[in-house]
């Protein structure tokens, strides 16, 4: 369970992205939708501990993300929209770091590289990789340690069709295994069948839309309307 309690956050004090927002997302796939700039990626960064709330707190399985930093982060994995991997290390170095921090054997990192087809690129720097390869590298990091909370920002961007299919399959498996997945995506169609609930951010507050239409076409229309910034009643 990932919980936001009265979270306020602003890059500029006069323009808060979130204002006293509260939210609780349990197991299943929560799809964060909405127009550009509404605060979806920021919400995900807050949940992943990349940004710290100006006020309020964020709990991962009841553990405060900024009080017990290491413990809370053991349970989460984050895939940013722009895969920022340091150019001063190789992919193998980065995955070994993740293994060490999550208390996993090095072999898990090697296995993750194999699963995401990056064995040949393991000793390359990020500068030599395409955008899709960088994204796959961070998927491989998310695989290590089997974290129960997974935050994905535009996970299907820049991926080829085969890897996209593999990622969707992986998302489905993790959802079925009881993990909490929060995904920001403008590509709704591939994910619509897997979505448990939708989340929107508007004017600094978050709304969780449970009980999505079961019929695929109606569900897609509903999610599409939310993504265009319409409210729940208009969407329905």
């Amino acid at each position, binding site marked *: 369970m990932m919980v936001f309690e009265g979270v306020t956050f602003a890059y500029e004090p006069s323009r808060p992205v979130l204002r006293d927002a509260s939210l609780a997302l349990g197991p299943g796939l929560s799809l964060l939708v909405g127009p550009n700039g509404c605060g979806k990626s920021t919400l995900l960064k807050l949940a992943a501990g990349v940004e710290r709330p100006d006020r309020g707190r964020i709990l991962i399985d009841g553990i405060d993300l900024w009080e017990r930093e290491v413990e809370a982060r053991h349970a989460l994995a984050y895939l940013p929209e722009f895969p*920022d991997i340091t150019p*001063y290390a190789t992919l193998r170095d980065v995955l070994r770091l993740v293994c060490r921090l999550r208390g996993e054997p090095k072999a898990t990192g090697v296995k993750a590289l194999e699963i995401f087809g990056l064995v040949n690129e393991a000793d390359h720097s990020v500068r030599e990789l395409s955008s899709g390869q960088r994204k796959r590298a961070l998927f491989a990091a998310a695989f290590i340690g089997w974290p129960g909370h997974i935050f994905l920002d535009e996970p299907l961007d820049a991926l080829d069709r085969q890897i996209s299919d593999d990622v969707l399959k992986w998302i489905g498996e993790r959802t079925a295994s009881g993990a909490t997945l929060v995904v920001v995506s403008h590509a709704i169609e591939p994910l619509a069948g897997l979505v448990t609930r939708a989340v929107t951010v508007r004017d600094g507050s978050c709304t969780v839309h449970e009980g999505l239409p079961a019929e695929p076409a109606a569900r897609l229309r509903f999610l599409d309307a939310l993504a265009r910034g319409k409210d729940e009643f208009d969407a329905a």
Partner: protein
Amino acid sequence: MGPSMRPERALVLFHLRVGARLALRVLAPVLAACLFVYYILRPEFTLEIARILFVEASLLEAGLAGTLLLLGLARIVAPRLAAGSGGWARSLPADSATRRLAAVLSMLVAEAPLLAVLGALAWAVTDPGPMPGVAYIVRVAEHVVRVAPHIAGLVLGATAAGLARLPPLPSLPMRVLPLAACYLSFGRDPAVVGVSGLLLALAAALSVRTAPARRRHGPRRRLLSFAFFPALALRAVRGRILLAYLPAVFVLGAAWLFLRNNDLSARPAFALSLFGLSLAITAFIATAADILASRRPVWPWLRSLPLSAAARVRDDALLLALLALPLAIGLALLRRPAAEAVYLFGPVAWFAIRGAGTMREAGDRPFGTLGTVAVEGTILSLLLALLPTASFLLAAATPMAFLLARNAERRLKPTLWSERHHSNAGDPLSWSAS
């Protein structure tokens, strides 16, 4: 759709604005330095240095000193102005020659405050003095004629240094021409300055044709997993870390010379050596932290891994403290090394943690990491010289500095664009975009 502006004009205007903005940012430290020089070192000292540079020194001396000065300035300004110039900007409708020359012009504007100070000094030291029986206007004209080669030389030299330092860096043979132009610009003789101008024109013409491709290769050797973060930091700064030792060595050398050439009693000698050592450590840590903050910016994704903010600060502080250890060799130059070593524990611990902390706030501070640590360090070094036991107070206060640094790390908004991220190396997004 309105009439479009000529690309050259649009680019020049854009770069002038960028240069002016940077100039405004550096104006405050330049003014502060001028006030420091005027009130602390006294005008006589400054004018003497200027007289040596502009009047008395030979071409060899003036050329070398001036070239080093202008190259150093260009080294600071160039990456701040060239950020992003290798990417999307290349898709705009302007040729590479225009882009490069507009960026050099922008550098000149950004360096204008310091060049104006140098120009004013040149004016002051080339005063022809009283000319009895000569009209005032003739005297002023004589003064202008004397100073003109210096002013023209400064502008030419700064342009040449900009051309040599502007990314993407030209190949070494292609840097010889602008460096020669910069060197000759301090020639004082109008003919030599003219040659400098010709060389500069040639260098400008050649540099736009031979812009090197960007290197994309990365590390090949594995990092040691137990020393991942220090090794990562050292890879980010590479040989630049040696530059951080230069000001420290300079301070230590000055302290050593003072002690050698003055017969001081035990107490003042101890105070001076403690001051010198503490200031040297400050100078090193301030410069090293500044280089590190610029070359290895915050890595947003790392913050989602199970590693605490305190651990990230601790790793940086330990690295800075370890890198400062070679300065302990300075102890051997002084009189009572064992005593000074005991008193240095406090400053090393304090400044290493302050360096790691201010790196996290560099974007919010007008003088960045370098200015903040240098100012604090100078004040605390003076305090230590007057009251050596303050070292133990500093050591006792390091947990507080650590908490401040940890809070700064937590407060940091890594996705917020800040002016600190001025170069490709300093911009975390460039990690994904380069």
